[in-house]
């Protein structure tokens, strides 16, 4: 275990933080800009995964397993969320025959 940690720590922590931030930013951009509902969901998954990566990195660099346990929780949560979200998208498609979010504007004043 020790050697693994030492090997893993040859990559400086900053790299992981930067990578995670970039992936998170890409995810946010995807959520804001894309019109396809499924692509938005994929971007949300991206964001979740970037956080997972960061948590794991910190866990390795601190030698504390709490981070990785947290990652497990986040993965389970993501799975549940995707299940419900995709079910909603399928219902929307069945009713309006489209998954373009600009079409879904019935809740206006």
């Amino acid at each position, binding site marked *: 275990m020790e050697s693994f940690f030492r090997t893993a720590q040859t990559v400086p922590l900053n790299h992981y933080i930067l990578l995670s931030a970039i992936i998170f930013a890409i995810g946010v951009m995807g959520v804001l800009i894309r019109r396809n509902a499924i692509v938005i969901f994929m971007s949300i998954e991206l964001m979740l995964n970037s956080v997972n990566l960061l948590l794991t990195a910190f866990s390795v660099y601190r030698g504390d397993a709490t981070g990785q346990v947290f990652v497990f929780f986040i993965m389970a949560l993501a799975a549940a969320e995707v299940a419900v979200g995709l079910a909603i998208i399928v219902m929307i498609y069945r009713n309006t025959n489209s998954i373009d979010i*600009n079409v879904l*504007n019935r809740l206006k004043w």
Partner: protein
Amino acid sequence: MDKYIWLIPLLPLAGFLINGVGRNAFSKGVIGFIGSLVILLSFGLSVAAFLQVKSSGPINVTVFDWFSVNAFKVQFSFLVDQLSALMLLIITGVGFLIHLYSVGYMHHDEGFGKFFSYLNLFVFFMLLLVLGSNYLIMFIGWEGVGLCSYLLIGFWYTNPDYADAAKKAFIMNRIGDLGFIIGLFLLIAYFGSITFSDIFPKAIHMSPGEVPFTLITILLFVGAVGKSAQIPLFTWLPDAMAGPTPVSALIHAATMVTAGVYMVARSNALFSMAPITMNIVAVIGLATAVLAALIALSQTDIKKVLAYSTVSQLGYMFLGLGVGAYTGAFFHVLTHAFFKALLFLGAGSVIHAMSNEQDMRMMGGLKDKLKTTYWTMLMGTIAISGIPPFAGFFSKDEILAAAFQHSTTMWVIGVITAMLTSFYMFRMLYLTFYGKFRGTSEQEHHLHESPQTITIPLIILAVLSVIGGFINIPEVLGGHHWLADFLAPVFAPSASILEHKEATASTEYLLMLASVAGALLALGYAYIKYVKNNHVPVADSEERPGPVSLSYHKFYVDEIYDWLIRKPLDALSVFFYKIVDLLAIDGIVNGLGKLSVKSSKGLRLLQSGNVGFYIFMMVAGIIAILIFSLVKI
């Protein structure tokens, strides 16, 4: 007798309630009987009270404890001393005669019951005014008679001019009452009490600087100016002639307008401590007397002549008060009540005979057709002109003698005013009763002497006008000055302070001679002008020479008040309405509503239904929270 004093005001109050509630139910005979009976009973009780006061001094009766605040205690109690006893006799006596007169005069009026109930209410308040043993009870009566004056002047309220006259009287009264109330507050502040028996003995022993006597007495005098129609608050009285003639006789001749004189006479202790105020009182009284006399010279409505004459005689009374002749002024109140009530009732008889015509230019030659009215009015006119041995001579002479002691100029102006009085009163008599009849044949047809219920009061008052002066004959004429001795205890506080200048007998004779000669001269001139030369005043539309026109238009006082007071007040009112109320206040209130609507309209647009926009806002919000939490810490 002590136990029955409270009946004196209570009986008229009962009359008011009975006649007021039953005004449509009872017959006119019953209403008239009840209304007059209660006053007659009060008169009887007043006579008993007077006799008791004459023999054993003032009566003090406490009816109930009213209220007390800390150390300030007010009791509802009556004080019958020499001054109030005489006032009681006048109010109930002359009041009874006028009630009797009204039975005949108002017989054809639908509001007969209402009229008698108002009259009784007025007598109740007036009695309260004179019976009160402290300023608060006097003030209840003060306000009450103002109210009844409004009700009675505007009795024929369907005519908007009459209703306006009633409002004018009430409002001018209230302006005076403001001064009166502030004076009362100052009295409470400085003396801790408003009971006469507490204040007056204390007052005369104080040094002038301790209490602001001048301010307090000026404020009390402002109240008297409003109530007794002095300059500048006199214009309501001529307009008050809009009321029925018995009202003019009772309220605006014999009783209400003398309330101011009574109040000042009662407060003589306070006034003697403020010589400046006494000067002001005398000057205003004299000025009012002259101004009103000048206006009366050219009036053509018989009631207006009498109204201005009342204002003028009230001026005389205040002149008397101002120069310290308290007995003389009060004596004039008594004699004036007799002959002025007589003159008004007589005028009412004439108006009644002339089918409600009041313009003297339409009258003339009535002395053969209305014999009793003519002879009684002749008595009244001689009395008011101050010709001996009728009542007016003695009272007016006493005031003029005191004025002479005070200032010769005042005496000269007073004598000139007496001459003017004699002139315009005899002018009125001659225009009405002498010469040829100038009215329409319709009116001539209806001319008849009034029924007995009208002529009997006239006769009684005429007798009183003739002999009334004998209660206070001065020593120089061999009399005993009964009234002065009788009233001495009431005016003792001021007598101890004011210096009393006695005139020599020869001076007094000269003064009397001068005023009588002046009155006779004026009488002669009026006779020449109106009987010999048959002069009749010109129609309203015609031109008059300068001074006459000034007098005829009442010196434009009403117009001056309009321009000076009413217009600025109206402008202020319009300003407050248009700008403060409509623009500012409504603007703010409505503006708040409009603001809510506008902002909600704007915020509503956020609900665009665009999911992408919602997500964007979520992200923006999270970033904002992050920055906020980082930057803050």
